[in-house]
């Protein structure tokens, strides 16, 4: 009853090898085989240890199953097993020689919109599973729409359970063409379709022997190669200031044995886009004062420049008033400074919107108060139809709204910048994160 344990992917022998990171989500309706797919990916890439395999062998046997149930690998908490449901997003990890992968595994129940939006917010790629017997269904369109809304531009359409349709090419092609027509209507750019059988492992890590008509990549080949991460170094500079580090000589705030010979004042943050280049002139917002970059450092290492995603500390050549929530930006390409934003929001809270209440909005490192000034329309995620002027917003709703801000924010469109184009909304009374939004 055990699947073979022999390693088919030889782990690299050397200690370190060049490796990039890919974060993806898997989406499908309840019985599309999502857990089997993830289990299979982990199992066939040798990411599962023998004690975990023993545990699922025992459970499989207890349940009277004749084969190893790989979906048990993603079985979560006791509370979930008791109720037979999945409560929450789980994150899973595996490596190949080329890449480290992080899977955001969101459950497919009523709260799906909320969970999928959450998982998609940090994903570069989405695997959409469809059952070959059912083809593209409402959920497929819903998941595609949500992935697209959250800026996940690379999609893998995995037509699963090909064994149950006798591995037929025409069925696969019809589903693929259906899906491509739909995805094209949303403007999705990067799609890879492939026929798989997650249960038996066809085209996941090993090429299928039952579908000789298919000569494309296996899922893992594609995941290893695909470039789903957008290059944001060519975009205009956006450096939200997270903290100001101020060290004076002899005030005890400096680390021991430092090589400081004078006062240090630096701006800590993680680069959202563009390049921080020593010598470049930048503008600080909201003051709009200009300064040149004197140094870019990561601990005691001075860098000539920093690329997006890197956490650094920046020194400027002159003292200007900058604090947390301010932003260093490209001198000739500013974000919009706004007191009003238009956004698509996903409502995450069980408590509906109170239109007259003020909420907190956290955008980059800045938190301000906001008011819902207009509700333009709600998107029915199943039909993608817009319902104008909704009277309320409840959990899992996707709504185009207008927000008024008490203080200005420095924003870009989400399509251009996922960092400066996104925000969350917090209820000041309950402290709950009640909504997430993308700026349009």
């Amino acid at each position, binding site marked *: 009853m055990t699947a073979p344990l022999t390693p088919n992917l030889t782990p690299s022998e050397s*200690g370190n090898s060049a490796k990039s990171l890919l974060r993806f989500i898997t989406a499908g309706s309840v019985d599309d085989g999502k857990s089997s797919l993830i289990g299979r990916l982990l199992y066939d890439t040798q990411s599962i240890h023998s004690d975990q395999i023993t545990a699922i062998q025992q459970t499989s046997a207890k349940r009277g199953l004749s084969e190893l149930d790989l979906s048990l690998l993603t079985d979560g908490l006791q509370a979930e097993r008791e109720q037979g449901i999945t409560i929450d997003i789980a994150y899973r990890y595996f490596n190949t020689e080329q890449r480290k992968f992080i899977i955001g595994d969101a459950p497919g129940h009523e709260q799906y919109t909320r969970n999928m939006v959450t998982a998609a917010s940090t994903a570069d790629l989405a695997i959409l599973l469809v059952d070959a017997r059912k083809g593209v269904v409402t959920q497929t369109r819903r998941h595609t729409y949500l992935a697209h809304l959250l800026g996940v531009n690379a999609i893998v359409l995995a037509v699963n359970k090909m064994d149950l349709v006798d591995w037929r090419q025409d069925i696969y092609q019809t589903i693929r063409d259906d899906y491509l027509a739909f995805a094209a209507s949303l403007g999705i750019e990067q799609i890879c379709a492939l026929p798989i059988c997650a249960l038996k492992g066809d085209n996941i890590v090993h090429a299928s022997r039952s579908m000789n008509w298919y000569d494309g990549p296996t899922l893992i080949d*594609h995941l290893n190669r695909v470039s789903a991460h957008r290059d944001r170094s060519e975009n205009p500079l956006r450096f939200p200031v997270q903290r100001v580090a101020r060290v004076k000589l002899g005030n005890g705030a400096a680390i021991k044995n*430092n090589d400081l010979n004078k006062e240090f004042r630096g701006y800590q943050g993680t680069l959202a886009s563009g390049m921080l280049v020593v010598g470049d002139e930048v503008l600080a917002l909201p003051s709009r004062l200009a300064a040149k970059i004197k140094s870019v450092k990561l601990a005691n290492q001075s860098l000539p420049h920093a690329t997006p995603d890197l956490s650094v500390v920046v020194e400027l050549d002159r003292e200007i008033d900058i604090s947390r929530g301010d932003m260093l930006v490209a001198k000739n390409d500013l974000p919009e400074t706004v007191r009003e934003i238009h956004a698509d929001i996903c409502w*995450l809270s069980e408590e509906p919107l109170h239109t007259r209440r003020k909420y907190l909005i956290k955008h980059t490192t800045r938190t301000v108060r906001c008011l819902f000034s207009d509700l333009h329309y709600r998107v029915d995620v199943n039909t993608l139809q817009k319902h104008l002027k909704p009277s309320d917003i409840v959990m899992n709703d996707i709504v185009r709204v207008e927000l008024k801000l008490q203080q200005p924010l420095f924003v870009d469109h989400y399509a251009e910048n996922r960092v400066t184009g996104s925000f969350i909304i917090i209820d000041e009374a309950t402290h709950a994160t009640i909504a997430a939004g993308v700026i349009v």
Partner: protein
Amino acid sequence: MLDTTQIIIENQNHLNVDDQSRISLSNANQHLDWLESEAIFILREVAAEFKNPVLLFSGGKDSAVLLHLAYKAFHPEKIGFVLLHIDTGHNYGEVIEYRDRIAQCYDSMLHVRSVEDSIRRGTVRLRDPLESRNAHQSVTLLEAIEELAFDVCLGGARRDEEKARAKERVFSLRDEFGQWDPKNQRPELWMLFNTRIRPGEHMRVFPLSNWTELDIWQYIEREGIELPPLYFAHDRTVVRRGEILAPVTEITPPKPGETTETVRCRFRTVGDISCTAPVESTAVTIDEIIAEIRSCKITERGATRLDDRASEAAMEQRKKEGYF
């Protein structure tokens, strides 16, 4: 045969490797740079948004990595966190020596609170003087949080360690009882962390959430982070209990009828003596350890944690009770 249109709209230059390396972070191990940057962002967010943060430093490898990251996050400022170790009283001497020396190296104030004190106060009662004190740490931790008025605890827990951890948030809210409520967690989107708490509540923050055991070792190697000697192969007196090597110490003597032997071994996790076991190993360098982990077929906790073996949901239960 199907033509090659499976990849329908795949943009050609997406597969250009040179292009990829240009845009990426600085060196070969891009994934380590990314993990490092993410952890630094989280550490700075904690420093910026909380009043009284504490970093839990046990002398184990994950907390050593966390402390090193804190150093990098704030340089040239001192690390803005005090350190706390919950001492079960059953720790290896080498680890305690390492803990004190490293805390001093980083010029950080170290608080030590011991389960022994909780026993004396009567808040922890042992059924058996030699029983594992690991689970009792939660009580002492909560007492320390209250006494020292911490509003946030930074810990080195990782999601790949255990399946209850896979569902933990990076910023995880705890009530006065330190309870983790898996059904009532705040959604976490992008890098926008909701840090709000009420009086009496505190936050647990896990900057290493997205790291795996292999990432940790690769990072230790790259950064040259010092570890207690227990992590490297050494000769040790043990008894074999099934697949487990139980170390023989004053507090964990052999049971009647058991024979002791000397085995070349190392620890994969270092914690309370009564519940961490070594694994047979000849790895004396980090390179050798990494090679071992890559070919290893047993999880870190499965191999060495006697406390998680009790039941499938052991960790989940302890976390609900305030455990890390």
